[in-house]
């Protein structure tokens, strides 16, 4: 149900009404001489749960009440309405803007103090996410977008903002994935790919593109420059659901890589409210696996010792309900036991094209993946 509801872009008036309601509530509370507040769903591990049936992470019902008359919250409270007010202006004028631009739009000195409304884009980005989840609107419904991140190549033809794009003719850089890839902006025209290969890193993606891996294996090759941004995740979701393609994820062998995979598959903790329209539960983990070093007889000198941060992150991940399967527990335990990690580049030790000629075909053809 919810999937469908969010599938289509809703009437912008609905967003405006929701913003208005939040503001009205503040005015009403103030008239009653009560401390004005806004209720914001908590976006942390404590307020997400793993929906095993759908295999996605969902946001819980826990709310955090943000008060104006609370020294610790007053500024965030003000920021929330500054952002809300700016979004309202965007919606009313029918313009969209980047979240970076919105940061500059709302940043200014407060009164005759030395204090700014925002000092860092990180602060305003977090407030935007708060607002999205609070009024249950998508970022694009607030007329906001992020800068493009991630790229795609493959036997896919699409229409991007009215322009026809042939993703098999994108040169070395590929098609840059926009932050908003909704149907009204991006439409798939035709596709000859058999699967999607999502790689963590730009560099590995270039290696595969240079080797024309996607041509040989008829796949869509995509990267997200590290943690996949929302545009890439939404695009993967649409490709999988609309074109019925299997998705393979190829990330570093470290806790961060595992987490990138899990975000694509089950959704993220921070953006759990987006899981319904972004998570791809059918995604498969191709590698690198902690066992690959032995299986593919990689030399010893390619491993990197886990640092303290890696170790504690691994110990956290091993506790996540969506990593509870036997295979994943084995994978994580093995990593912790060995005390080392592997980067995708480690495969180059067996030859520059080992990854394209040997490793990936072996993994995919012989279904050597983790679910």
């Amino acid at each position, binding site marked *: 149900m919810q999937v469908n509801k969010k599938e289509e872009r809703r009437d912008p008036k609905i967003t405006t009404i929701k913003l208005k309601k939040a503001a009205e509530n503040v005015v009403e509370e103030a008239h009653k001489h009560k401390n004005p507040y806004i209720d914001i769903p908590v976006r942390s591990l404590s307020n997400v749960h793993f929906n095993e049936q759908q295999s996605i992470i969902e946001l819980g019902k826990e709310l955090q009440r943000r008060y104006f*008359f609370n020294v610790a919250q007053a500024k965030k409270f003000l920021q929330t309405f500054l952002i809300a007010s700016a979004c309202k202006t965007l919606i009313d004028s029918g313009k969209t803007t980047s979240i970076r631009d919105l940061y500059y739009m709302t940043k200014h000195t407060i*009164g005759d103090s030395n204090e700014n409304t925002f000092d860092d884009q990180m602060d305003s980005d977090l407030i935007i996410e708060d607002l999205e989840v609070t009024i249950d609107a998508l970022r694009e419904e607030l007329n906001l977008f992020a800068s493009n991140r991630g790229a795609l190549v493959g036997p896919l033809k699409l229409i991007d903002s009215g322009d026809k794009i042939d993703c098999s003719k994108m040169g070395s850089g590929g098609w840059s994935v926009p932050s908003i890839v909704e149907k009204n902006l991006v439409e798939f025209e035709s596709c000859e790919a058999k699967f999607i290969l999502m790689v963590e890193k730009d560099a590995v993606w270039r290696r595969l593109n240079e080797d024309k891996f996607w041509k040989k294996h008829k796949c869509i090759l995509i990267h997200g420059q590290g943690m996949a941004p929302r545009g890439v995740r939404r695009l993967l979701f649409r490709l999988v659901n609309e074109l019925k393609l299997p998705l393979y994820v190829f990330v570093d062998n470290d806790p961060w890589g595992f987490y990138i995979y899990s975000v694509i598959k089950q959704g993220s903790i921070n953006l759990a409210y987006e899981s319904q329209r972004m998570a791809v539960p059918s995604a498969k983990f191709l590698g690198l696996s902690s066992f690959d070093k032995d299986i593919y007889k990689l030399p010893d000198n390619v491993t990197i010792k886990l640092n303290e941060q890696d170790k504690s992150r691994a110990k956290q991940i091993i506790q996540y309900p969506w990593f509870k399967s036997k295979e994943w527990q084995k994978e994580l335990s093995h990593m912790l036991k060995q005390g080392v990690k592997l980067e995708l580049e480690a495969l180059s030790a067996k030859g520059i094209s080992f990854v394209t000629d040997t490793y990936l075909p072996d993994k995919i053809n012989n279904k050597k993946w983790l679910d």
Partner: protein
Amino acid sequence: MVQTQLTDNPPPKKEKIAAETLAQNQREISVSEFFLKNRHLLGFDNPRKALLTAVKEAVDNSLDAAEEMKVLPEIKVDIIPVKGEESRIIVRVEDNGPGIVKEQIPRIFAKLLYGSKFHKMKQSRGQQGIGVSATVMYGQLTTGKPAQITSKIAPKKPAHYFELTINTKNNEPVIHKQEVVEWEKDHGTKIELELEAKYLKGKQSVDDYLKETAIANPHAHIIYTNPEGQKMEFPRATEQLPKEPKEIKPHPYGVELGMLMKMMGETKARTLLSFLQTEFCRVSSKVAKEIILKANLVEDVKPIKLGRQEADNLMKAIKQTKIFAPPTDCLSPIGEETLIKGLKKEVDAEFYAAVTRPPAVYRGNPFQLEVALAFGGSLPLDDFVRLLRFANRVPLLYEQGSCAITKAILGTAWRNYGISQSRGSLPIAPLMIMVHLSSVWVPFTSESKEAIASYQEIIKEVKLALQECGRQLASHIRKIKKRDYETKRKKVFELYMDELVESLSSLTHFDKKKLKDDLLIIAQKRTIGGEDASE
């Protein structure tokens, strides 16, 4: 009397000098001569201090006299420059005390070591009894002019006027003029004398001394005119006279060998047993017998017949005998309420606290400590605390560093009370600390009576009183901090308010002014003094 060897005539050659020859150069010197050579011991070290000492001795006497008569002191102090003599000043102090009978006037003002206070074990301001006559002599020695005294003992009695100097050879008064004069006062005494002195303002000045005197004596009304003609009035803050201190007999633990011998020589008691029982407090016949037994003496010996050796034995015996502490109802502390009244009228602060400790005893002498604090207000923010020391209501202006009170303040952990203090120095805060020691016998470190000797018992009591006041102060400082924090909070809210109202106004419609007012009301309610201040 002091024996001294004069060395004006050194022997010219290495001859053997007979004792008789030496004896020719040895002579008795009078107290007056001794004073002349040792004026610093009595507080006349320099012209500035001489002025202060002169005023101090006269005012102390006036306060004591008025209290003895149970009238509220009215004291007028005039310091008048002498025309054409820049180094000279006239000091005039007038009181409403009981006055002095005609016959006694010359001896009281013009005979050193004459007075009623020296022998008494009673809390009083002057306690060495050298005070006012020393001033008369100082004036006479530096200007050659006699002191002018006027005194009247009752409305219907005549007022007597004297001009007096001291015969420095035999320490006897010299009367230059004596007459009956008209004086509109019912009773009182006025002294006027010229002396070599210098008037300066600031610390340790007459101004400071009188101000501090007014703080410790809020029952007194003092009118003061300085040499510049400026009149300062220190009004009365309480109509209540201090409780009259009771005279007590000395406690055996407090007596020294010389004093014991003197007492034995002067006593009317016929036997040692009765001497011990009648001349000392807390000595029952049982205790007296124990002392005599331990001293290896007999009970019915005449005290006057006992010599130095026996006295020494008695001293040792006293130390070995357990004797009750002296009675402490003989003391007259200022009292917490009056202390605060006195401070409030002279110091503009935001917080006051006072503590009167229960009496305690050092070496057989009862004493009692009081501490009062004034904090904030007009007191300087980043300076050392101002310390006011008092002994029997008299301000101590000199020798702060060697005083037991100062040591106790340095030894108190002020940081525990939210006051900053570096090691070994006075705390830094907008704070005035007043410490008052009442005792039948204040143990001064020297004759100029400026610093209290560091008896452990005294330091301990000062510290306890400071700690008690400190705790009250700490709770006040916590409150201020809380209030400052609330003010800051309120400012934060007010700062964001306009922005918030603007943001909201683009989202929905409402009366901006009404919303702003509502928010201000909530801010008030939720911050300083508001019912919901601590969220």
